[in-house]
């Protein structure tokens, strides 16, 4: 099995090349089969690898020397251990479902664009696989950049729409800002340790000084904030809704945004060495949870709500990373992948049925038109809200417990976030599926349940959302039932959560579930009959405008930069540099016009000058001794 490791990323790459290069000649069927098939095969191989890793431990495959210079050897190698095989399963599994879903969702595109879409999707999966399978930070960085590129390509998939292009550019640039930090972190590592291979880095991590560790981890974390949409670099993610809905699902659930979590979980040895960084991560994580949750409350675009919920859930993951609950964070990645993919695909199904309408105020009562979508969506909502026994409960609970152990304030804020989560999710659910239909008659007539290619992935994801959490049942419920912890044991060696009395733990669970249930009930009661149709005012307006963060960024960063650039362009460039350049030209022109008078074109005068020059040179030559002494007196 371990010989097939390279096939896992290679198959999506092959799919990308085939679909991309032959997009004009392949039929939609062929494209679909190739696009989905390669992912399915990759998934099956990953499954095989999973069992092998489970049985025999990590597989490290080195193929060739990627960079081999004096003092630095970076091999091109894949490291398939518990952490990466988990991510591989999520990526290929959820990715496969999204592919299948896409075959139906994108069916209205013309064939070349359809093929282009699938080739990008395959490339996305390939990059993400490269990211998680890479045996060192450089391969990880390659995948890291690859997903950035693919997000740009996919967000701007409908490139004829200028706004979408802006959204794509925004995502790309935001990512670039984070990548700079990441790259600097890598450089720092190379400078201090001379290696990027995980095993060597972690083995030598003890030699690093406190400043180095803090610096490196903070820089890597900056990269993670960009990729995983944390404060302050999260604003691209909601705008990334410009892409097709399955792309959103892929970005939000399975791939890109979890890259930061993966990277930090992978580097847990480094991060656990720096308390400062952990605190920073925890604070930023909880701040992101609350900020995104509050914004989500007042959003009316179905995908925007889900987008902010993603940001918020990512905040939970980072909270978990910050408080040292690496298992919990990775666990949450997995469960989140299931229910967030489910929610996005469900939203896609709704949008599809509504004829590309995304505003929830124009929906309502869809329950009776789209039963499958409704049920699966409800399950997803319950899962994300942390209601037992759905998957979200277990993962979120683990993080919150760890947060409590670290600092009760974090727990309180986390529970508040959970309440907000439950509230906005059921606001979304109630407004969309309950009550009466508020759309146009035409839309009502058009409403229908989606085809099997859409509903089957929904059902599959719903099942996973329900049962996905059961592999990580906390010890307090059933002792030693936490298979997840056992599995990740070899990778995450630094899990350091203070043991709590069981009573405390039970209490925490009950409180959080109770708060969530109360929030759900409030939301259902409030929005089932009287959905919020008016433009929100006051605090609500503030939230609806996303805390005016985009405007703040515009005012603080973008506009000054524009002004500065304008200043350089109009003043420095025009008057200064152009002035110098043109001045040089003018000076040359003027002086040559003057000097030209010497060049009379008359041979005689030339020869006269030549003879005079010879005379002067000979004089200098004769008297060079005097001239040297004279010049040496002057200088």
């Amino acid at each position, binding site marked *: 099995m371990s010989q097939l490791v390279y096939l896992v990323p290679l198959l999506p790459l092959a799919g990308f090349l085939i679909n991309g290069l032959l997009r004009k000649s392949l039929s939609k069927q062929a494209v679909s089969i190739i696009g989905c098939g390669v992912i399915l095969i990759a998934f099956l191989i990953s499954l095989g690898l999973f069992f092998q890793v489970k049985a025999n431990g990590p597989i490290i495959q080195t193929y060739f020397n990627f960079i081999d210079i004096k003092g630095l050897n970076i091999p091109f190698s894949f490291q398939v251990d518990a952490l990466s095989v988990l991510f591989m399963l999520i990526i290929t599994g959820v990715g496969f479902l999204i592919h299948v879903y896409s075959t139906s969702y994108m069916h209205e595109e013309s064939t070349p664009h359809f093929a282009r879409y699938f080739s990008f999707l395959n490339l996305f999966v390939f990059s993400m696989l490269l990211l998680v399978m890479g045996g060192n930070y450089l391969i990880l960085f390659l995948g890291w950049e690859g997903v950035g590129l693919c997000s740009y390509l996919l967000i701007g998939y409908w490139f004829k729409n200028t706004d979408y292009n802006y959204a794509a550019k925004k995502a790309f640039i935001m990512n670039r800002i984070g990548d700079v930090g990441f790259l600097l972190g890598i450089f720092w590592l190379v400078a201090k340790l001379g290696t990027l291979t995980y095993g060597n880095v972690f083995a030598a991590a003890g030699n690093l000084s406190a400043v180095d560790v803090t610096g490196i981890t903070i820089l890597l974390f900056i990269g993670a904030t960009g990729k995983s949409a944390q404060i302050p670099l999260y604003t691209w993610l909601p705008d990334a809704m410009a892409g097709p809905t399955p792309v959103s699902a892929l970005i939000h659930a399975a791939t890109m945004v979890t890259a930061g979590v993966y990277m930090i979980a992978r580097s847990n040895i480094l991060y656990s060495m720096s308390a400062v960084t952990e605190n920073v991560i925890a604070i930023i994580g909880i701040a992101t949870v609350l900020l995104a949750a509050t914004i989500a409350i007042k959003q009316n675009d179905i995908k925007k709500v889900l987008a902010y919920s993603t940001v918020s859930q990512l905040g939970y993951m980072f909270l978990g990373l910050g408080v040292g609950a690496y298992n919990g964070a990775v666990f949450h990645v997995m469960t989140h992948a299931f229910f967030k993919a489910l929610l996005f695909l469900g939203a896609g199904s709704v949008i599809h049925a509504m004829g590309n309408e995304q505003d929830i105020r124009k929906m309502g009562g869809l329950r009776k038109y789209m039963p499958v979508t409704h049920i699966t969506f409800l399950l997803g909502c319950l899962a994300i809200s942390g209601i037992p026994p759905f998957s979200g409960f277990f993962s979120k609970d683990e993080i919150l417990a760890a947060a409590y152990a670290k600092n009760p304030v974090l727990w309180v804020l986390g529970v508040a976030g959970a309440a907000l989560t439950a509230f906005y999710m059921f606001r979304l659910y109630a407004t969309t599926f309950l009550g009466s239909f508020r759309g146009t008659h035409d839309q009502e007539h058009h409403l229908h349940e989606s085809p099997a290619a859409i509903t089957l992935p929904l059902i599959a994801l719903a099942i996973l959302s329900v049962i996905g959490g059961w592999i990580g049942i906390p010890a307090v419920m059933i002792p030693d039932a936490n298979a997840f912890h056992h599995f990740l044991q070899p990778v995450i060696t630094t899990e350091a959560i203070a043991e709590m009395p069981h009573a405390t733990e039970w209490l925490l669970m009950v409180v959080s579930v109770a708060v969530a249930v109360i929030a759900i009930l409030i939301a259902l009661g409030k929005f089932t009959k009287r959905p919020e149709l008016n433009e929100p005012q006051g605090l609500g307006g503030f939230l609806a405008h996303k805390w005016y963060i985009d405007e703040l960024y515009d005012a603080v960063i973008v506009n000054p930069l524009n002004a500065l650039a304008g200043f350089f362009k109009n003043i420095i460039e025009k008057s200064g540099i152009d002035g110098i350049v043109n001045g040089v030209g003018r000076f040359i022109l003027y002086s040559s016009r003057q000097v030209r008078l010497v*060049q*009379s*074109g*008359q*041979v*005689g005068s030339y*020869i*006269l000058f030549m*003879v005079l020059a010879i005379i002067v040179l000979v004089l200098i030559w004769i008297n060079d001794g005097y001239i040297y002494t004279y010049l040496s007196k002057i200088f």
Partner: protein
Amino acid sequence: MPIQYYIYLSLALFCIGIAGVLTRRNAIIIFMSVELMLNAVNLLLVAFSKMHHAVATAVDKVNNVGTDGQIFVFFVMVVAAAEVSVGLAIIVMMYRNAHSVDVNFLNRLKN
């Protein structure tokens, strides 16, 4: 004969050639002045060749020291002849076009 005398003679002829180039406008005369300068140099070469030969002869009765100088003179003549043939052809063309051999007519590159 002291070598300086030959040098002075050659220098005088050479500077007369330069003066000719500088003071005349007739292209042919200028050309002739150049030939005069070449001949001054030839004379100097031969004189130097004999000077070196004299020095070497004082040591060794049979020797070929100084041959090079005269060979150079020969090559200077070769080049001069080639130069004259082409140069005069150019002057003839110039005269055909400008009806003058005044070098100041050749200032059309000025503008």
